[in-house]
């Protein structure tokens, strides 16, 4: 069976998606990155292999997400693509008439504006993580509940409690204040969802022309309370696609398939065996100039595979030296 693999290594989760030659999803995985991107990619490969038939032939591999370059070296990717392009390609495959994509992930959030099947504008959050999943995670943890329970209880809210959403730190103190005043937890939780959505629309969505159909994807789309809050805020019905959490990986797989149709020199995929080898990462300070860049390197059996982090391409140019 001919197959194309997309790997999306995000800050919080690692996603894998396998498509067949008709671009149908045949296998997928959703794992927590747990700060160990290399191990998670290896584990992901091992696990996804079990979902596949014996005769699978990996014709192309693409990586995306914030660890896309690292993951690309490990698996031998044919294509390394940014998250914006991957997400939009996957969404357009699923819903060609989509005009807006809202994607909220663990550490970052994006908005992609599409007209006539072409991306015409996009936005990403700046360094602030106030409008993202990790903020919700953190608050759920503080209230000692799972994120699933968070979502369920927030939906049960019947009155609005307004929480300041501009900054995570202020949102938290606002939330505590509301708790101490005796507001119901359900209402506070939903207030938090509304704050996150307001923050997202006012920062990432600032000046963007949001038009229906709006597709909402990324891990946070699991949270029904957020879905409800976005709908209320925009006054538009939003669509959460099936497999919304792995759209980036699907997009990467679609892109590598497309790429290899144009020029196929065979895949650089290193095989499922890479999940067994021991990669070694280390870093050092380059002293070639006063910039003192921190260079990170990935090596296998003492041989350096890749280096990153320089302000110039001194180390990237010569990984073997």
């Amino acid at each position, binding site marked *: 069976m001919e197959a194309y693999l997309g790997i999306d290594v995000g800050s919080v989760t690692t996603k894998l998606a396998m498509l067949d030659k008709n671009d149908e999803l045949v296998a997928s995985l959703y794992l927590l990155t747990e700060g160990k991107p290399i191990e998670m990619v290896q584990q992901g490969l091992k696990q996804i292999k079990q979902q596949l038939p014996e005769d699978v032939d990996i014709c192309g591999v693409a990586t995306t997400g914030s660890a896309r370059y690292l993951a690309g070296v490990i698996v031998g990717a044919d294509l390394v693509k*940014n998250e914006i*392009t991957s997400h939009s390609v996957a969404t357009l495959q699923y819903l060609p008439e989509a005009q807006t994509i809202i994607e909220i992930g663990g550490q970052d959030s994006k908005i992609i504006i599409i007209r006539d099947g072409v991306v015409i*504008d996009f936005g*990403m959050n700046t360094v602030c993580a106030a409008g993202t999943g990790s903020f919700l995670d953190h608050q759920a943890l503080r209230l000692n509940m799972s994120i699933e329970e968070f979502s369920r209880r927030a939906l049960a809210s019947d009155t609005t409690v307004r929480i300041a959403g501009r900054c995570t730190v202020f949102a938290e103190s606002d939330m505590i204040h509301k708790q101490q005043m005796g507001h119901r937890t359900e209402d506070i939780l939903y207030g938090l969802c509304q704050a996150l959505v307001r923050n997202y629309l006012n920062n990432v969505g600032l000046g963007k022309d949001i038009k229906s159909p709006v597709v909402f994807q990324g891990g946070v789309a699991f949270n029904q309370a957020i879905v409800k809050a976005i709908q209320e805020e925009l006054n538009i019905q939003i669509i959460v696609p099936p497999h919304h959490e792995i759209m980036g990986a699907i997009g990467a797989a679609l892109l590598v398939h497309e790429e290899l149709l144009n020029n196929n020199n065979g895949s650089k995929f290193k095989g499922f065996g890479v999940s067994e080898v021991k990669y070694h990462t280390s870093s050092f300070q380059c002293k070639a100039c*006063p*910039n*003192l860049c921190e260079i990170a390197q990935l090596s296998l059996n003492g041989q350096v595979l890749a280096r990153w982090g320089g*302000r110039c391409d001194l180390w990237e140019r010569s990984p073997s030296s």
Partner: protein
Amino acid sequence: MIRIGIPRALLYYEYYPVWKRFFEELGAEVVVSPPTTQDMMVSGSSRVVADTCLPVKVFLGHVLYLVGKCDYIFIPAIRSVKSKVYNCSKFLGLPDMTNAVIPESPPILDMDVDVNKGKRKLYQAIYQLGRHFTWNPFKVRQASLAAWQAHLNYHELMSSHNLTPPQAIEIISGIPEAEANSSYLSSTRATIAIIGHPYLLYDEHINHRFISRLEQAHNRVLTPEMLSAEELQLATARLVGRAYWTYEEEVVGAGGHYLQNGVDGIIGIMAFGCGPDSLMMDMVRRQASRLKTTPFMSLTLEEHTAEAGIVTRLEAFLDMIYRKRRIQAESCR
């Protein structure tokens, strides 16, 4: 020979040739700090008063580098270079602020430039500056005329030959021109205009080699300096009427011009915490969304050492342009 230190930051890119010529005509030697390094950024940041912007931190880093390497440091207070057009307060107070936070600095040659106060005040200021070198007012006058000519030549060189300030300064200084652009132009994928202040666009350290990255991906890069003063003025007038900020034209004028002149995309670069920039970029963004013809993206620079944010946005922006073109070409077929 008296050595005059000039920090390679802020208004250096705008006025270096005029300053250099003026001091050299008066018999002084000019010492310029090298391109920004991490060291300068860290040392500059450690000295600033709270809540100052990244370009000022970098400027102070350059001043610190020059300590001990020159007899004077030249830091003019450029208040206004056009009638009723004002500069950011950080430029107005630059000599005083530097003096306050870097007490070990060599004596600062200060000069007030404010055309609102009339020509006489300006001439007086130039003469005051020249008096550090000569008592002869005619010599100062000659030096300033030669310097002004150097300034006009510099800007003419950039707009007529499509050069960036660092390229033009190299030519003026007689450094043989590196064959930079030409090799990329043969296989250009897209033409991208970048807008913003020169101290952000050409400081490769703080912008993470932004222009080089675009060129290495085979894109042609256009910058505000490649437009003539008339083109910038006209576009600014069309967009906002009268400019309020001194360096508004290189953002609003350049943005307005390139929006209507068939580039494939425009990228605005601004500094985190810059008030004027946030207003000016917004003008361009609004115009871009009104016209809907040219994609526009703005990037905010700060002290971040990680370049991932910039790289991801740049890749996504270029992909957007390439894919759009390909899909449109396919649908025409």
